[in-house]
């Protein structure tokens, strides 16, 4: 498989190296060549004029459903969806069946991922079976390859367990990712407010997220550990994180494209593809999330890609499963932030590539000479309609079906090998 390529006429955006220039980028044997390195004879050219060449994107929050729910997604299909959406790496959450709470499950995931299109970074569980009672063996999980721990899907209800998880994880330099929702307050079906009132659906107040986010901040602050808040959806939580960062608390945060794109108004019509945890919030929250992305309060955009089949989604709204797929729409939806002047190009690449790698602690997210050539090519202009027949994920649960989108990943390269391309039929 060829891993030597010459990208020509692209706009190279590499925030970590403070690069933003139009020109060429040479990849030799799967690594990025030093600038002005002579182009080896016979190197295939990839003309990417009008496109951006950026460090490979990392989605730090996906559900690949394997092991256990392969009818929704598996590691191979999820990774194919990832590379088609411009992601060279994904961090997969442990709430599979069985839960990734021991080295054997991690090893199984890693083995399956060896043949996958994207890099897979397993996240281990905080507690056995994600039941919130007994800590998993973080050392063994780390050795097996997990990059973080989380009980995502469930909040850690027991505050003492969370405190101990933060402390113990610091011994292994593992980030702890918190799904922050107070379970007693979040038994509803959508955001609590005028729309839930009109629809007669039980609400989940913004306070359900805020009280848990504040607990994590207080625990991290007291113990001097770090914590990462998953899928921030509310203005209240963003404000808490902003204030904590100013105090020097080691807190990082991510949000998902749906939280800066949609509001709870989308639930009108009872489309179960608008049902997720945390729920879509108000317009005021949506704007606050955008501000938090711009001012550095929120560090990363992650999709919370959560595939479900029609068995879980073509049912009554109350009974429908939470979550939507997101790998294939994230780049397009995030590019709207640039067009709307919420963030600039450089900040967008920090959110999608630089910061996720930094939070998870691996060397990626830059185009330094000698670095492994994980590269995403993005055409910020291309218009397309996201139809069901284009979906690469096994599941189709998305509220963005048939949306007219602008901007798309055109080519995804992992270690110098082209894993997905929309540029030319002549390329792999």
């Amino acid at each position, binding site marked *: 498989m060829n891993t030597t390529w010459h990208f020509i006429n692209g706009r190279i955006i590499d925030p970590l190296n403070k690069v933003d220039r139009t020109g060429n980028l040479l990849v030799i044997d799967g690594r990025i060549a030093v600038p002005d390195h002579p182009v080896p004879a016979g190197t295939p050219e990839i003309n990417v004029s009008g496109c951006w060449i950026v460090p490979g994107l990392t989605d730090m929050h996906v559900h690949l459903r394997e092991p256990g729910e392969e009818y929704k997604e598996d590691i191979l299909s999820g990774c194919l969806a990832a590379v088609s959406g411009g992601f060279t790496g994904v961090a997969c959450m442990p709430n599979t069946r069985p839960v990734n709470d021991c080295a054997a499950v991690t090893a199984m995931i890693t083995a399956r991922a060896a043949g996958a299109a994207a890099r897979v970074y397993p996240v281990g569980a905080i507690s056995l079976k994600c039941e919130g009672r007994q800590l998993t063996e973080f050392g063994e999980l780390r050795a097996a390859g997990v990059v973080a721990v989380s009980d995502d899907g469930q909040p850690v209800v027991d505050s003492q367990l969370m405190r101990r998880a933060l402390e113990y994880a610091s011994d292994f330099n593992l980030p702890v990712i918190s799904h922050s929702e107070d379970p007693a307050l979040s038994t509803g079906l959508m955001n609590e407010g*005028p*729309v839930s*009132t*009109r629809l007669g*659906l039980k609400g989940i107040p913004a306070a359900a997220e805020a009280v848990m986010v504040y607990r994590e901040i207080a625990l991290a602050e007291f113990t001097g550990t770090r914590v990462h808040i998953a899928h921030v959806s509310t203005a209240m939580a963003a404000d808490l994180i902003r204030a904590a960062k100013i105090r020097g608390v080691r807190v990082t945060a991510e949000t998902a494209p749906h939280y800066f794109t949609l509001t709870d108004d989308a639930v009108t019509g009872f489309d179960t593809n608008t049902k997720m945890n945390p729920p879509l919030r108000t317009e005021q929250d949506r704007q606050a999330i955008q501000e938090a992305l711009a001012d550095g309060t929120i560090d990363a955009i992650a999709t919370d890609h959560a595939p479900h089949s029609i068995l879980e989604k073509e*049912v*009554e*709204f109350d*009974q429908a499963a939470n979550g939507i797929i997101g790998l294939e729409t994230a780049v397009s939806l995030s590019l709207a932030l640039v067009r709307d002047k919420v963030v600039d190009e450089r900040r967008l690449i920090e959110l999608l590539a630089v910061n996720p790698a930094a939070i998870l602690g691996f060397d990626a997210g830059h185009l330094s000479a000698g670095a492994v050539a994980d590269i995403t090519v993005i055409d910020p202009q291309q218009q397309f309609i996201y139809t069901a027949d284009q979906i690469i994920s096994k599941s189709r649960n998305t509220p963005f079906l048939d949306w007219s989108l602008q901007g798309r990943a055109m080519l995804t390269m992992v270690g110098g090998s082209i894993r997905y391309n929309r540029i030319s039929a002549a390329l792999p």
Partner: protein
Amino acid sequence: MATGPTFAHRHILGMEQLSQEDINTILSTADSFKEISVRPIKKVPTLRGLTVINLFFEPSTRTRLSFEVAAKRMSADTFNINASTSSTVKGETLPDTARNISAMYPDIIVIRHSCAGTPLLLTRYVRAAVINAGDGAHEHPSQALLDLMTVNEHRGTLSGLKIAIIGDITHSRVARSNIIGFTRMGSEVCVYGPATLIPKGIEQMGATLSPSLEEAVRDADVVMALRIQRERQNDPLLPSLREYAREFGISRSILSLARPDALVMHPGPVNRGVELNPDVADGPRSVILDQVTNGVAVRMALLYLVMGNS
């Protein structure tokens, strides 16, 4: 009925979809059907040969009976499915149930379901007209229409009135449908209840949130009390029904703040001594039984109008 009124709706999913003109059409049609119920032979051939299925996923005696009586007075064949105990227990999904029923070619499906939005979901899987007989806390359009009909009969108008709705607004589909219906007809709806039972943003539906029971009832043309449950799904809403009756129940002295000719309504079944003092529930201003009578007429009108449009 040779020249039926124009009515543009294939399904009746909620008051939200009905214009003032639609509501007037339904009420005048119901009015013309009402006299059938007092004839010695209470049957007209209007819907002969048509099949009406009452698909009830939630126990209901009153509403189901009312729809069944309405359909039979119109000569339709009616079948009742108590889905709460049958197919869902076997793990059959709503789309499965719907496609199965649709394969029997019913003309109208009347659905009640504990989940909001289910009647809309049903329309995707069946050819029949769908009438919502109550979906979760969302809508109960036939109840609102019979309430509008009852008030209109007693007041001669539906505009410029003050309607007080008291009690559990959060879990009440009757409250939502009535807020939409009465405000659309030009009346003011004031709601009041314990703060644990007032949903966020109810004002955005067009209702006025009253600061006290007295303010809600003062000068009201209609005082409507809603059925109360103390606790739902482990959510502690009220400490006791005793306290509810004392603080939020409609007594004769509270009622004296309303207009002298104010109507007392309740969607039933009444917790006597809780939402309504017995002397109020059975008092001269109570039109609760008129509501029941008009329920049959309104449902006859709905069955007729959705068929006229198929």
